[in-house]
Structure formats: C-alpha cells, structure tokens
C-alpha cells in the first residue's frame, strides 16, 4: 500500500482526483490534502507520503517553490496542471510524470502504476533533486543535466556531453561525448523542444545537433555539417537558412 497526499488550490479538483483514485483504493490511500503550498509542506513533513499529487500553479508559492522549500525529496511527485505553461518544460527536462486537467483515466492509471513501482524502493529521488537544481540554475546553461529515460534506467547527462540526436521513429538515439549511444523513449521533436534553448539546432528532420560540436559546413551534393568527431549530418534545404542563422547568432 502506497500513501499519498494531494495539494491543489481548488477543492473540486482535490475531490475529483480523490474520486478518480477511488478505483485504485487497494493500491493507494490519500492520507491528507492541502489547498496551498505552506500547508502542503506541513502535511508532507507530517505524513512522509510516498506520492505527492502537486498542482504547479497556486496562489502564493507555486508547486516548484514548495519543492525547493523541502529539505528531503524522498517521495515521488505527479504534477497536475491545467495547461502546459511555463514550468512544464523543466518537468519534461527532468523526465518526471505530469497529468493534464481534466485527468484522463488511462493516463492516471499509467502514472499510478509507474509511481507504485518506483516507491517500493524508498530512496532519495534523484529526478526530483535534479528538477530542483534545474529550477535554481539560470537557463541555457549546458552544465545542466537532462534526464534520459531508457527502458532500464534514467540517466542524468550534462547537456554539453550530448553531441547530437537522431530520430528513430518514436524513439531518439542520443550520441554522447564518451562515444556512448542512448536510445530514449521520446520523440526527437520533444528533445528539440527541450534543447533548442541550449544551442541545439534541428538541421534535418531526423537530426538535432549541439552547436558547439559543429566544426564546419560542407557542400557536396547537398549541405552537411561536419562535427568534431568526424560525423557528417545532412542539412535539409528547408532548414538551411534557419541553421545558418542559428550557427552565427548564438
């Protein structure tokens, strides 16, 4: 049995989530609810829950500030948000789970099962700690670590160690500086979304490249980017102008 708390500024949302979770009452019990961040901190300290259902947008402190205020992050978090506004980017960057309102039954089920699996081993939540450190740092810093969830593990890789990414249908193959390749279960467009602020360029529909590894632009039967490690990545005609602009503007 897993214990959980719900933190949301709207009574109806708390109630709705409780009703939805009623389906999983054999697996999860809600021990407390709170309607603002400060109260939330209190109940987390009080109940030491395994799972926290956390609304991001709240009056006063928001969900992220709540997390930053806690000394120990030894629980799982399922973010609940109405719309993908600012902040969800960081959640995605840390590869944490989130639910969008109104909550879809199947998505809830998926998230619950994942959380239960993880919470069986009570330990420091690295992903959450990563998120908190992400939120503290200034953006566009390549020292920041991105969570790369693969089938067996989630790795935290500094952005500057990623050379380039290649689309493999709904998966993405990520090429690291130490010649390692990581296949992650997210589409390339999601990584483009996350990494474009860090100097990554979508040079081709199948390729995303870290600008700092681009050595030169080659023209031979089309355009190519030559990387430091000798890799050649194609530049598609449609992206040519955008790539040129991106290469000189950073």
């Amino acid at each position, binding site marked *: 049995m897993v214990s959980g708390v719900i933190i949301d500024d709207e009574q109806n949302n708390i109630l709705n989530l409780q009703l939805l979770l009623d389906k999983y009452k054999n697996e999860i019990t809600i021990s407390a609810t709170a309607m603002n961040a400060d109260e939330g901190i209190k109940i987390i300290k009080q109940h030491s829950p395994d799972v926290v259902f956390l609304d991001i947008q709240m009056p006063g402190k928001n969900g992220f500030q709540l997390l930053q205020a806690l000394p120990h992050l030894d629980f799982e978090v399922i973010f609940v948000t109405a719309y993908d506004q600012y902040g969800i980017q960081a959640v995605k960057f840390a590869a944490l789970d989130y639910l969008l309102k109104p909550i*879809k039954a199947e998505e809830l089920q998926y998230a619950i099962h994942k959380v239960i699996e993880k919470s069986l081993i009570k330990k420091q939540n690295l992903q959450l700690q990563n998120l908190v450190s992400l939120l503290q740092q200034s953006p566009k810093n390549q020292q920041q670590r991105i969570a790369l969830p693969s089938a067996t593990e989630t790795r935290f890789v500094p952005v500057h160690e990623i050379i380039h990414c290649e689309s493999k*249908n709904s998966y993405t193959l990520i090429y690291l500086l130490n010649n390692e390749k990581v296949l992650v279960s997210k589409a390339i467009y999601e990584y483009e979304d996350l990494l474009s602020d860090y100097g990554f360029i979508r040079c081709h529909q199948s390729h995303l490249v870290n600008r700092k590894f681009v050595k030169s632009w080659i023209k031979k039967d089309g355009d190519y980017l030559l990387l430091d490690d000798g890799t050649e990545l194609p530049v598609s005609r449609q992206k040519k102008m955008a790539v040129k602009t991106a290469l000189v503007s950073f």
Partner: protein
Amino acid sequence: MLPDIIFARHYSFHIFRKKNLHSEKKRLFLLCILACIINCTNAQVKWRDDSIPFNKIEWNNMSTSYFSDDADKMIALVTAIPYNGIDFIGMNKELDLFYTSSYYKYQSNLSNHFQKLDTYDSGNVYFVTPGIFKNNADSFEFRILKDGKVVMKPWCEITQFTDSNFQLNSFRKFCGFLGGYHTGFNHFITVELRRKNNLKNIAESSVYWKQIHPHIASVYTSDDLNIFLKRLKSAYTSPEELNESKKYTEEYSTIEDSLNHRAKMWIFNAGESNLIFYLNASIYWKGALEYSLLKNGKVVKDWQPNDYDNNFVWLHNLSNGNYELKMRYRMQRPNVSTYLFKIKPFWYQTNAFVAACIIFGLLLLTLIIFFILSRRRLALQKTKTQKLQLELRSVRSQLNPHFVFNALSSIQSLLKQSKLEEADYYFTEFSSLLRDTMRNNEKEMLPLHIELQTIETYVKLEQLRFAFKYQIKIEDIDTSAVEVPSLLLQPIIENAVKHGISKMRKEGEIILSVTSKGKDMIITIMDNGNGFSPSQQTEGFGLKLTKERLNLINQTLIEQYIDMHIESKAIATTVLFTFKNWL
C-alpha cells in the same frame, strides 16, 4: 596717319567693265531709239548737275585720280570720288602702282588722259582741272556725256574755279572746277576736255556707278590668330604671298550670289567662339561696313556699324548653332551679302546627346517609379500575406463550432443517461482535442506524429456519434521526424466525416495512409461515402481554406511543394496530398 590713308586711294580699272559698258551701251542705244519712238520722253536714268555750294564740298572725303604734286605744271582732269572710308584694293590690274616718299603715286597704263573709274557712292563725283585757271580757261571747253552717248552738257567753257578753301592733295587753289555729277548705278558719266576748236580730247574721265556687296576673302578661327595678325601687319599683301593656309578661303558664296539661294555653309568645329571674317576690301572706317547677325533664325545683333576700323568683322563669344552673317556697305545698304555658317556643338550639346539624356532620365524615372511601385506592391503583398496568415491562424485556432457544440451535446446526453464512464471518456478526449488545437495552432509546422494524434482524437470523438470505422496506415515514414503544416489534414477528415460517411454509420470507413514514394511523401484520406463533386460549392469552407493555405505555404517552400488532389466518385472520395521532395 589719316592723310596718308586718304592719299592712298586709287581706283580700279576693270577690263571686264569695258564689256559691261559695251553691253550697257547697246541696251541704252536701244532704249534711246525706244524713247524717240515714244515721243522723245526723257530717259529714266537720272543724272544731275549738282549745285551744292562749292564751300560745302567735303574735299577731305575725296579720293582723286591723281596725286601729282607737279600736276599744276600740266593740264589735267582730276576726278574726285567720295571715299567714305573704303577702298577696293587689288582689283585693278591696269594701274601701275608705286610710291615715292610718304604717299602713293600711280600712273595709268592708259596714260593720264583717259581714265575709267568706279564710284560706289550714289552721291556726286567732282571734276577739277589743275593747270587751268581763270587766265587760260577760255582756251578750253568740256562736255558731259551719259553712258557715252547721251549729251547731258554740251561743249561749254570752264566758268567756275576753286576758291581759297580748296584743299585737295597738293593741287593749287583757284584751278578750274567742272562741277559735281551723279547718275544711277550701272551707268556712267564721261567728262571730255579739249582745246577749243580742236576735235581731239586732251583728257577723258569716265565714272561708273558700280554696285558692290561685301565679299569675304578668308575666315580666321582662333587657331589662325597668328596668321591673322601677320595679315594685319601687311594689309596689302595677298593671302598667296603670305602662304596662308586656305582652310576657309575657298567656297565663299552668299545667299545672294548663289542662284538657287542655297549658299554653301561653313562648318566650324565645336568651341570656336571667335571668328574673324576678312573682307577683300580696304576699309579704314568702322562706319563704312555694317553687319547683323542671326542665330538659328533669330536676330542676335541688329544692323550696326562694324566694331573695327578695318576690313574684317570679328565675332566674339559665339556658341554652337546656325548663323547668318549679313553685311552691307553703308553707302549701298540695299546690297546685302548673307553668309551662312555653323558652329558644331560639342558632343554633349548635340540633340542626340540631349535626347539620350532625356531618354536616360525618363528611363531612370521609370525605373525609380517601378522600384517604388514594386516595393509598395511587395509591402502590400506582405501585409496581404500577413493578413491571410492571421486569417488562417484564426481559422486554425477554432474548432468547427458545429463540431464543438455537437460534442458538448453528446456529453450532456451521456450524463442524462447516467453513462458516466462514457461521458468521462468523451469529455477528456474532447479536452485533449481542445488542448492540441490551442497548442498546435501557434506553430506553422508540426511533427506528423502530433498531427496524427490530434486526428485520432478527433476521429474517436466522431466515432462516438457515427460509429464508423477508421484506420491509420503508416509505411516507412518516421512520423516523429517528418513535419507537416499544422492542422492541415484535420479539415479533410472533418469533411470526410460530414459529407462522406456520417449517413452510413457502421458501413462507413475512413482510411488515412501515409506512404513514401522516392523523396515524396504521400498522404491519402479515403472515405467510402457517396462523394461530392470537387467543383461543388458545398465542398466546404474547410476544403477551400486548405487550398488557399496550401497556395500560401507553397510560396514559402524552397524546392518543395504540397499538391492536393481530390477525386470524388459515387462510392468513394479520395483526397491525395503529395509532399514533393519531402523526405
């Protein structure tokens, strides 16, 4: 200096004049006979015995046939012809010219007794007789003939004598004075002098009233100034003797000379602003010659006396153009000589150049106007494009209201029936679609994967209402990598549902397939509804908008384009998108 010049007069004596006289004589003879026939009326040729008081005669203005300082020792007939500042040098070849001490002296080859002289002044010519004085006058007699035939004054004695005011050369005062006479131009008067009762004339003098026009001998340009100055220094030397270049000395003819009134025109180089027209006459007084200048048919200088006391007209500050130089002698004003000349324009003054400038200017103006217009048109097009894009975005951002409210109505119906699970499913799918639509309309291009997800959500919702079948087939396409214009396919699916399979319920089927063909990606959306004519108006706003949007998108694409083809048959409608060079 002045006396020298005056003394330097001498008179031309033309051989050809004789011929003229001869023909004149013939004509006059005929005229006389004619005059006799018509009752002896007076001949129309005027002549007059002048009665100007002796002291009013301007002896200063007279040229004489003799200078002789020893003329008083012999009896001579001296003809005094008005000088008026002009003389015609080099015309008479019969006169033997030489000079002693300070003045010229000449003797006629035909002896002193017989002289033929010309006058150019319509006024009187005077005759005096040095060597005949009151004391010996009674042994001489003279008569005046006109044109050698008509006796105007029969033989008579010399009854007038010069007075103490008389001063002509070095002739002695109080010598005989025969009077002043004149006749019309082209006629002559002859004075004959003889001893009484001796039929042999001791002296004869004929004066012919000759018409003259100014005649140009040569033209000097600014290049020829040195030659011209040399010429001035030796005024009585012929151009041949000075070895003058005959650049402009040949073809001088005036309008009046040329029979067809088309005189030759001199053409001077561009920039010749100074021209000197040198006349073959000896002119010593600026008043003697008058000229006027016309440029391009307009009078630049009206008739005016010459600017110099010499036999040239010096024109200054000339610019390019066609000129007419008109000249006349003051004493014969009706006889005008008109010379044509032209100063070439510099290349930049030519009409062709001016025309070229104008054409160039116009061209430039047109270009500027064209540039401005095209810029304005471009700006207009840009705003139009922006407007259209905004329009498209606003259309994209909205779900079809018909669909929205039908969906809400369906949820309401499920709630009323207490089908809560179904209602919840319908509701959350609807919110997903709303979210996708709101999120995706911000981007022009979207991963095909997301586009297909949105379509699937939509289809699921419509399925709840119409219970048709659908399939999405994907072959060889990385839908996460490939991007398509956002919400491009959705209106087509909507159309397929609305016009195609909505009435068919469970038999209805929509198949969306994504395939590749070389570098092209092909997406077909097929439904088995009754179809519609592509030209039909009812094909829907969505379809029309999609076409417009594709036109717009194709303008922004490089080496790529998206083609939409609609094929509607009775049993199926297929919309085929070809994404050229897409992969």
